[in-house]
């Protein structure tokens, strides 16, 4: 198991995050068409439901109705992640953006989401160690 310095982890993640933002902003700025920018919003909102509803799971598992609340968070997460991928596709299908802009915004949004998820698991591991 390779142990990486936590500081370098954070630096790597922030570089990837910045690269993702760069891709999305480029996809808007190059073609002077700022519609794909909403992808950023969707991918920033996407991790929130899991983070909020997942915390409510810890009450006690004998109760019957607790298990459906984190389910709703997972459902929303799946919905939002695919929305972020589907929005550029839809814009391209309606000829509102070009194909390169679609690819760039999809890739950038995915990088942003991946970074946030990795960051979350990174801090989660930190909690387990202590």
């Amino acid at each position, binding site marked *: 198991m390779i142990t990486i310095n936590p500081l370098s982890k954070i630096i790597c993640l922030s570089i990837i995050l910045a690269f993702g933002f760069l891709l999305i902003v480029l996809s808007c700025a190059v073609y002077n068409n700022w519609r794909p920018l909403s992808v950023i919003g969707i991918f920033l909102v996407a991790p929130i439901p899991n983070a909020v509803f997942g915390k409510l799971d810890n009450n006690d598992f*004998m109760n019957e109705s607790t298990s459906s609340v984190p389910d709703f968070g997972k459902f929303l*997460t799946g919905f939002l992640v695919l*929305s972020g991928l*589907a*929005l550029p*596709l*839809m814009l391209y299908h*309606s000829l509102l953006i070009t194909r390169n802009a679609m690819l760039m915004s999809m890739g950038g949004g995915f990088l942003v989401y991946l970074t946030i998820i990795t960051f979350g698991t990174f801090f989660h591991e930190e909690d387990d160690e202590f």
Partner: protein
Amino acid sequence: MDVGTHSERLFKFNLPFKLPSSTVLRAAGVYLSGILYSVGFWFLVDASIYSKTVNASIVHVTFVDWIPGICSSLGMFVVNSIDKNRLFNDSLNGSGGGGLSSFNGGLSSTSWYARLILFFGFSLLAGGLAGSVVVLVLKFLMKDFNTYPTLGMGVANVVCNSCIMLSCIVLWISQNIEDEYSYSLVL
């Protein structure tokens, strides 16, 4: 919990991977159902925006095309907001301790209401799917809009409603997996 695969070998060949546990399977099912719902939703939005922007024909997506999708979503909401323990357990426990009534298969009033609402939800789902086919036939096929870019708006409607129905089924199944799991835990 890996009984049968490791402690007692039943088959000559082991699976090269572990079967996922029921919690993982359930989480994956819930994610999958969200993804399926999203696919359906975006198909509908895509059809309506397409009809506004690059549509060369005289057919446009109006509110009529949205009604089946709304019905399906409402049905999915109704079906999944029912507490599933109310559906099955009451018939086993008997209604209020009445021995004969449970023997005859009598249901308590909550269980009966739960099944009625469940039936209502499923009929909303099926009605949404059927309604999308009706829109496809009446609005597109009967008026001879058979070429693809125009027909695609009607097909997207059917795809949307099938996706929502599939999403509901996946959510239902994955939540029932959890029920069995917690049942064995409690015992």
